[in-house]
């Protein structure tokens, strides 16, 4: 089996605070992999460690390996921009560039990374990304309007389109529905099920029901340690660890 991503003995500190402790797991390709756990257990930190966004934080320190296609993203001489382009990232709070138009928000990544030859190719790429994010029909007449005029759910789908337009291999989603109403949330969940045909999706959620609904594999993170990992159906019906059971049942019951 070839893996989309392999994480080996990953440790992260913020200053002296040990946040992630010897986290090890593998994610198969073309599945939805959910990371669940209580607030503050290190889920967002784990995602940011994978695409090296953690490098932006001068107080963060990382040890261990994160491999994509067998290449350790923390090895010396690696091009961090290349690493980040392997991932598309969707954040907990929708963060489109508010001053840019809807079109520009999606087009910016391919443009600055030289992914397209000309304007018409860019137009096609933007359209396709917006279609994949199920936003095209709602915005196709407003492409020039600023992204800030969209609703929260639309902004989040715009951010998904922005991530898809980079043609990444893996999509990282940090509680993408945390700030959305149920209708917008279920739209994004449906969208994820579509997207896994083409991408590997790693989603962070602190909602076990969401993990149960959409994921194929699930990992349970607790106070920076990976407590349990497995096929979603197994973890939810027959958790191996007492903490997992408490978390799953406590929230679901």
């Amino acid at each position, binding site marked *: 089996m070839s893996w989309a991503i392999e994480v080996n003995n990953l440790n992260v500190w913020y200053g002296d605070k040990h946040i992630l402790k010897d986290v090890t797991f593998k994610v198969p390709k073309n599945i939805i992999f959910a990371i669940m756990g209580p607030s503050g257990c290190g889920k967002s930190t784990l995602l940011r460690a994978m695409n090296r966004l953690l490098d932006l934080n001068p107080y963060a320190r990382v040890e261990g390996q994160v491999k994509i296609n067998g290449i350790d993203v923390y090895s010396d001489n690696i091009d961090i921009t*290349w690493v980040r382009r392997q*991932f598309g990232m969707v954040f907990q709070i929708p963060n489109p560039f508010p001053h840019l138009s809807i079109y520009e928000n999606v087009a910016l990544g391919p443009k600055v990374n030289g992914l397209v030859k000309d304007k018409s190719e860019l137009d096609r790429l933007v359209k396709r990304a917006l279609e994949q994010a199920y936003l095209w029909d709602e915005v196709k007449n407003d492409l020039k309007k600023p992204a800030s005029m969209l609703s929260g759910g639309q902004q989040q789908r715009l951010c998904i389109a*922005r991530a898809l337009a980079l043609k990444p291999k893996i999509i990282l989603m940090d509680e993408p529905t945390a700030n959305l109403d149920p209708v917008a949330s279920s739209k994004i969940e449906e969208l994820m099920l579509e997207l896994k045909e083409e991408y590997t999706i790693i989603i962070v959620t602190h909602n076990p029901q969401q993990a149960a609904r959409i994921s194929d594999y699930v990992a349970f993170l607790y106070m920076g340690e990976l407590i349990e990992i497995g096929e979603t159906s197994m973890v939810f019906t027959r958790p191996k660890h007492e903490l997992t059971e408490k978390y799953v049942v406590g929230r679901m019951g």
Partner: protein
Amino acid sequence: MNKRKIIEKLMLGVISTLAVISAIPIFAIMFNVYAEGLKHVNLSFLIDLPPPPVGDRVGGIGPALVGTFTLVSLAMVIGGAIGFFTGLYLSEFSHTKLSQYTQMFLQIMVEFPTIIIGLFAYTILVAPIKRFNALAGGFALSIVIIPYIALNVREAYKSIPYTLKEAAFSLGVSAPVAYLRILLSTARRGVLTALLIGMAKVAGETAPLLFTILGTTFTYFGGLDQPINAIPLLIYNFALSPYERWHQVAWGAAAVLLTIILLIFIVSRLIVKEVKL
């Protein structure tokens, strides 16, 4: 009305009166300058050479206007660029000791008497070649402007939400692209305002020019290594002269300078207003 309410009203009255009083000088100055100066200003006043001290020729402030334009451009190119990148560094590397010390020194430098900066420029750019020159003036103005622009650009970049920074870098772009191409447009209001206010500041500076360009020349532009004039310096020199004719030119020049500075302020206000998302 009870006693407390009356005291409150009274206090409010006093404070508002003080506020109005503090604004009076601005209007008084504007009125004074325009009343005395505006009548001398016309197109040829902006273009012509200064008049001889006596006689009928009206003359103008052409060389000083060209000079101010040259010096401000120099200050913006040298000081603006250095100030901008310093500010970016201060904002994005604020955790480093170097950045913390730099910021402290810049905060002191903002308050530096500008005449001392002029002396410094004299020492390193005028004394060695034994000639007052435009570059020395531009250099002095650059030093005046650097701390000002750096500290304000720092504020502008600091005000960018962290999530937008993450969004920019998550696109897999290099730091220059992230900061200059993507995030600069987020911070552009603050950055442009910093540059414009800095520009207004140096356009009106006199002290740093006293020892650097001297300002007595009647030529428009002779090269960066040659003397040049500037409006504030022309005002200073002409106003101190014993000639009535030159006093009039000084008043006209003051009106022009004030207008330039007011225009810059208006533009910067418009920029701040423009994007309210």
